């Protein structure tokens, strides 16, 4: 009997949590049009989320491009297909690594700062103070951050892929000596703008929504203590990363199941 009760209570808690998060998401979306009227806030958030993540994203993209090109070369040269290196690096980056790695880095770089900022605002009762002044904190504080995240993520993912391909070009053409013309032309004949690049960008938009909403929710629902904020920040990284990886599989299955 005790076991059944505990199971039931755990399940109900879980469902309540999901419902709570869903209502939070709905209210956040509802607050988006109001926040667009104060566009300065959105611009400031794009700066905080996008511009300041630029260095880590581009460095990671370059490193991934370098390493991918080197490793693929060892595998491909055995089959005399070293010229296809650019194609493989391009598809890997544009379809998968660009959106996914950018989202994981984004959760660590921007998501944590969003959670900590909003968590401390809540701990310092700034959000309650806003409500007292009849200002909706969702429209004033949360929604601009959501839009900032949704705008910044695809741009960051595009730059990640672009820098990665350039990095692969440097390794393949300058270091190894693969023919530059073949490197680009094989890529251009095989990579489709809408199917590959377009779907990759669509993925990164979805991940942008997921990462930002998770970060905002964790910050908004944090326990108003130092431990609570620390715990919420950790949960942001863990939950956002798991969401990204799980959704990536579903999106890949939907987008690329037919060749």
């Amino acid at each position, binding site marked *: 009997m005790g076991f059944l009760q505990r199971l039931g209570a755990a399940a109900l808690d879980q469902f309540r949590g999901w419902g709570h998060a869903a209502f939070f998401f709905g209210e956040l979306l509802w607050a988006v049009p109001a926040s667009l009227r104060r566009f300065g806030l959105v611009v400031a958030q*794009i*700066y905080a989320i996008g511009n300041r993540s630029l260095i880590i994203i581009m460095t990671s993209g370059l490193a991934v491009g370098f390493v991918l090109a080197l490793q693929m070369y060892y595998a491909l040269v055995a089959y005399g297909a070293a010229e296809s290196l650019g194609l493989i690096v391009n598809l890997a980056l544009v379809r998968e690594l660009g959106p996914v790695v950018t989202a994981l880095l984004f959760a660590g770089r921007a998501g944590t700062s969003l959670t900590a900022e909003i968590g401390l605002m809540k701990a310092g009762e700034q959000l309650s103070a806003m409500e007292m002044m009849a200002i909706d904190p969702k429209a004033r504080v949360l929604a601009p951050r959501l839009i900032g995240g949704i705008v910044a993520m695809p741009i960051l993912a595009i730059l990640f892929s672009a820098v990665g391909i350039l990095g692969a070009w440097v390794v393949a053409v300058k270091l190894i000596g693969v023919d530059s013309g073949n490197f680009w032309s094989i890529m251009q004949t095989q990579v489709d703008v809408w199917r590959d690049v377009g779907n990759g960008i669509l993925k990164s938009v979805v991940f942008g929504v997921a990462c930002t909403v998770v970060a905002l929710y964790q910050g908004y629902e944090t326990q108003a203590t130092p431990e609570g904020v620390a715990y919420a920040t950790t949960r942001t990284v863990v939950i956002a990363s798991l969401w990204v990886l799980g959704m990536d599989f579903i999106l890949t299955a939907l987008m690329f199941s037919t060749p």
Partner: protein
Amino acid sequence: MGKRTIETAVGGFVLLGMLGLVFLALQAANLGSVSGRDAYTLTARFDNIGGLKPRAPVRSAGVLVGRVTAISLDLKTFQGVVTMTIEQDYQFPKDSAAKILTSGLLGDQYVGMQPGGDDQNLQPNDTVAQTQSAVVLENLIGQFITGRADSAGTATEGSK
């Protein structure tokens, strides 16, 4: 930091993103190769299309002239109907033949256009009359084995 500085920085960020997108679309993908120019459609019916896939290249003398856009099955004749988009610059005589060929020994399959000698060119939405199906390895091996069996049979008959 002033509002103007932030706006400039965000403008630079967005511009960088656009440049990245242009790079991905033009330098690292196929936008601007076939899809951007004027093109016309041809269809061809094959008894067997083998492993031909949509987006496979259409080549003439090895030069890329277009792409396969759609593949379907005609339920009356049970032939594979291949729809191709050919660039406007490339016109073919009316009695040209379409073949399904393989690049390399085990490479991807593509459609090869063998030009004929007619004065008139194929018009948009025409059907290429002469086609040659893909070579299916199993059939080839089957023919080879039956061919050997036949010749072996005639040889023993002849020796009697």
